[in-house]
């Protein structure tokens, strides 16, 4: 499998995204904004369709669409704080609508490769952009992770403490938008949001503290990517879709095994 340079590229990009996606996605899940990923993913599709239709780089138009969407979502979230999910719904439905219309002007084959991704067709530029994104995500969470955690816990208390809540939220949202836009080609717009939610959903089953919940989410995401890519190579399945199915299987196993784990823990404690 690793004799092929294409597969080496696929694994490199897959591993980087398997760390970057849950890292930025976990806070969206804790803020009960899991659907934001979905909305951004659909808008990224609209961006891709616009790019293909207008002869522009789909990557660039997808990044622009995602960044614009997250700004709109944050604006609506602030404006209608009691209906914070409203922005996500508005962006998601307009994203689908726009993507649907713009596909009338694109070649179906080109557009389809963004639905489920084509990790085997990643260019050098796309690989470098993913490396840059990975570094930005890791450095941001290494240096501002504690402040992000404080903002997730309580925005008001964080503000009184002197944390720049708006800047933290903006940086986080931009990283989420960029991560989704850059993952669209590799993993696929339709499945990238699953990778935001599934690893965290699995790690929440383990009932660990904040740090270990994140570490386990990264482990589950990494394992799903490695197993998914390997399986897709031998079974000739779409890589992005296979990764998501493996992540779902991990979650189902954990949900089934959880009651037994709880019993064993209780026995040990008694």
């Amino acid at each position, binding site marked *: 499998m690793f004799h092929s340079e294409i597969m080496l590229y696929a694994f490199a990009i897959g591993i980087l995204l398997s760390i970057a996606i849950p890292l930025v996605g976990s806070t969206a899940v804790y803020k009960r904004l899991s659907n934001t990923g979905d909305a951004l993913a659909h808008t990224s599709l609209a961006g891709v369709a616009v790019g293909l239709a207008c002869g522009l780089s789909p990557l660039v138009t997808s990044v622009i669409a995602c960044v614009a969407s997250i700004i709109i979502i944050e604006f609506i979230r602030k404006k209608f704080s009691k209906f914070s999910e409203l922005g996500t719904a508005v962006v998601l439905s307009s994203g689908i609508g726009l993507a649907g219309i713009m596909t009338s002007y694109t070649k179906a084959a080109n557009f389809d490769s963004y639905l489920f991704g084509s990790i085997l067709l990643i260019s050098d530029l796309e690989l470098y952009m993913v490396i840059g994104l990975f570094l930005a995500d890791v450095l941001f969470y290494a240096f501002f992770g504690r402040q992000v955690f404080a903002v997730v816990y309580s925005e*008001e*208390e964080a503000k*009184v403490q002197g944390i720049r809540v708006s800047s933290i939220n903006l940086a986080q949202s931009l990283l989420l938008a960029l991560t989704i836009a850059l993952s669209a080609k590799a993993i696929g717009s339709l499945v990238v949001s699953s990778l935001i939610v599934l690893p965290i959903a699995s790690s929440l089953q383990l009932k660990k*503290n904040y740090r270990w919940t994140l570490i386990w989410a990264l482990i589950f995401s990494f394992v799903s990517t490695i197993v998914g890519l390997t399986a897709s190579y031998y079974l000739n399945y779409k890589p992005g879709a296979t990764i998501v199915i493996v992540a779902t299987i991990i979650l189902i196993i954990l949900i089934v095994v959880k009651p037994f784990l709880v019993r064993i823990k209780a026995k040990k404690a008694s």
Partner: protein
Amino acid sequence: MIQLKNVSLSFQSERVLSNVSLSIDDGQFIGIIGQNGAGKTTLIRLILGILKPTSGQVIRTKGNVSYVSQTTSLSDSSFPSSVEEIVSLGLAAKKRSPFFSRVCKTRVEETLKAMGIFDLRKKLLGELSGGQLQKVKIAKALVSSPSVIVLDEPEAGMDEKSHGKLIETIESLHAKSKMTVIFVSHHKHDLAKADRVFSVNNGKVLSVEGDDENVPF
């Protein structure tokens, strides 16, 4: 020192607080009392700088301020976090390093011990009682050694026994430190040891005596 000079606040066309003037000296224990929806939380949000007044002036001398809000933005029990992680968040504003220094760890441990919750440090929030959760929130506020601590109805949802213990903890905290304590409560008897009590009613703030029988709580 905290001073409010002729402060008014309106949301859209509705006036929530009207022409409020008050002064709080360093080290005082201040009680704020009033019915639901009277504007108590709005008043402390103005004091804390979370809200800006429509007119008037809020003056606060420099110093470290901590806030124990009525609710966090999440349901505490479902949040995957341990007691020591939440308490260490109180130092988050000062820390921009991937590593938590020994000094910070020691400070967190000292605060946990002072609040009598050191043994709970590894427990998850979902495993705590209502009273223990409130102690964790207060420990988070205290870990940064603030000069002012603002507590917004920390007794909400607690049983009578835990409520009594919490009030004792807050009173002894004030007695031992030189901290300014601003305590918002529904119950007049919680504020028995307060230096001053402000009653919030219909957007007006009045300074009242703690044992004033006209205060309807």
